[in-house]
């Protein structure tokens, strides 16, 4: 029924973990363990974003991902259509 898929949900999960650690680091800037986790997840997120963009087109507007021809930004289902 929904148009969520594994690639997409994995990306969302990584993004959420990063948001959570980001807020935590804002009030705990000296926490080395949290910073290690943050950097490790950012690396994973970078890879996942690259793979997703290669397969489905840009994930972020305004120059944060290349598109194949024809312009892929307009193609994929929008989040509210999934």
């Amino acid at each position, binding site marked *: 029924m929904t148009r969520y898929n594994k690639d997409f949900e994995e990306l969302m999960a990584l993004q*959420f973990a990063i948001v959570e650690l980001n*807020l935590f680091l*804002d009030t705990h800037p000296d926490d080395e363990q949290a910073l290690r986790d943050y950097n490790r997840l950012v690396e994973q997120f970078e890879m996942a974003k690259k793979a997703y963009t290669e397969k489905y087109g*840009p994930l972020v507007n305004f120059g944060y991902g290349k598109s194949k021809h024809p312009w892929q930004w307009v193609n994929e289902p929008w989040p*509210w259509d999934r």
Partner: protein
Amino acid sequence: MFLYQKTLQFPVKVETTNPALAALILEQLGGADGEMAAGMRYLTQRYYMPLPEARALLTDIGTEELSHWEIIATIVWKLVEHATDEQIKNSPYAQHFANHGRNPFPHNAAGVPFTAAFFNAKTDPIADLHENMAAEQKARATYEHLIRMSNDRGVNQTLSFLREREVVHFQRFGEMLDKVQDYIYSKHRRRDDNLDYHRIRQEHDRYGMR
């Protein structure tokens, strides 16, 4: 600058069409303790926070609130997207539909349109951070009311996630309040900080500190 990432922060998987539930969930789209009020509250407060980490926190939570606003809009949309005229006519969503149709227009569950009068900001970091902590608790309470009134498991999963985020934000704001209070009332300010000493002095006068 804001960029758009073509995801939601949390999945929205609605089980069934339910315009009556959509009418209730509008509370968190355009209500007093809703996500739009939260985003505007934090993003306007960040300019004058005395610590750079407080500016970071308000920017980050303010941004997350905008992501929550679009989650709520998506829930409302999905609950009415496929509703028949008959389903809408027999639900409290009919009042919304008369003006806005299926547009997830930001008003509260009682139909009062969103207004900036729903929230406040003072240029006073202590007052503002207390306001934020209260707002997060009020939003948590609203999510609990909504979860109690909803039988849609998909919707409730998303609402539970949003409820939890209110608790986390409350925690972070409390930690930041401690830091800002320590900073304002301590004699050891960082030399390179761009401080509004006039304002800090006024605060100290008001609180009778130092």
